[in-house]
């Protein structure tokens, strides 16, 4: 599992944040471009809904725009960003739960995000297979308890290390690792049952 990260020649997140706070407005766009995909995917894993993930990811970056000038620039940027993302997702889930008890959308009626999957010309049967896998995985993740879902989403969609997840969630690193292993076991059970 690999995620893109900034080449060493590119400015770090913290450098971009400092430059933005120093008046370089272009740096905000650079931050958004760097993190839009992992944040979007994190929100997508948490909600299971493409449109909601779009709204949440948008809210996250608007919040970054608001909060960055008063944020502590001496602390790592990435966990700070994911704290915002996680809070936005939890707010959304709380609101959704309050509005509708059938919070998990019906996968049969859900518009598949297959068109949005990053890919380079896969074959049709590969697309179908991957679409099925996506659906199964999405449903299995949505059935996970919130704390496990968060850890799994931060790990796979956000590409965070266990240390970064621990900082984001304010949990000891060993607890995060335990949650992760437990979440994997639950996912394995769910998926095996389905297959």
């Amino acid at each position, binding site marked *: *599992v*690999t*995620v*893109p*990260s*900034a*080449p*060493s020649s590119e400015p770090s997140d913290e450098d971009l944040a400092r430059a933005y*706070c120093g008046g370089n407005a272009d740096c*905000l766009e650079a931050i*958004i*471009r760097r993190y*839009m*995909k*992992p944040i*979007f*995917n994190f929100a*997508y894993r948490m909600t299971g809904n*493409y449109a909601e*993930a*779009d709204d949440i*990811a*948008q809210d996250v*970056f*608007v*919040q970054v*725009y*608001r*909060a960055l*000038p*008063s*944020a*502590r620039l*001496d*602390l790592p940027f990435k*966990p*700070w960003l994911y*704290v*915002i993302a996680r809070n936005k997702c939890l707010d959304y889930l709380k609101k959704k739960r309050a509005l509708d008890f059938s919070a998990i959308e019906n996968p049969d009626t859900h518009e598949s995000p297959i068109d*949005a*999957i*990053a*890919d380079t010309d896969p074959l049709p049967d590969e697309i179908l297979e*991957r679409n099925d*896998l*996506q659906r199964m*995985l999405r449903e299995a993740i949505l059935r996970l308890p919130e704390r496990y879902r968060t850890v799994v989403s931060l*790990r*796979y*969609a956000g*590409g*965070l*290390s*266990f240390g970064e997840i621990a900082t984001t969630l304010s949990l000891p690193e060993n607890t995060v*690792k335990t949650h*992760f*292993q437990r979440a994997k076991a639950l*996912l*394995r059970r769910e*998926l095996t049952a389905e297959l």
Partner: protein
Amino acid sequence: MRERDVMPESEFDDIDALFARTGMVNPPDDFVRRVMLLAKSEGSTKQPAARRAPILWVAAYALALTGLVVLAYGLGIAFATTGTPSLVSALVSDSTLLSDAPSAYAEALLSSLPWLHMAAVLVDLVLLGLITWFALRFAASGKSVARPTSPA
């Protein structure tokens, strides 16, 4: 772009492989443009208000200060015309006045005081104090934007 392994801290297993196979979804093409538009629109509505705020504080402060000058002048005139100064000078020249008829003297003094003018000056002073306090707080919060705080 350089890619880095995100699973160096645990062994790669079937679940990792599944996630790797299903890949990541792409945000809509106009995502960055939308966020930047939202941020810019928010900035353009916020900044004029932030720029206006110090002017409003200065205007309120100047108004309260001018009011204080006018009211203090009025209070002085009122003191001069109500006979309070003559009562005070009588006491200064004859100190037995207070010991012989204290209640009569106090009653005369209280009735001669321009209460309305005094109350107006007091209210204006309180207003001036409040404006100063809020203006200082506003100035301090403006400075704190550049000061680091805890992550949101």
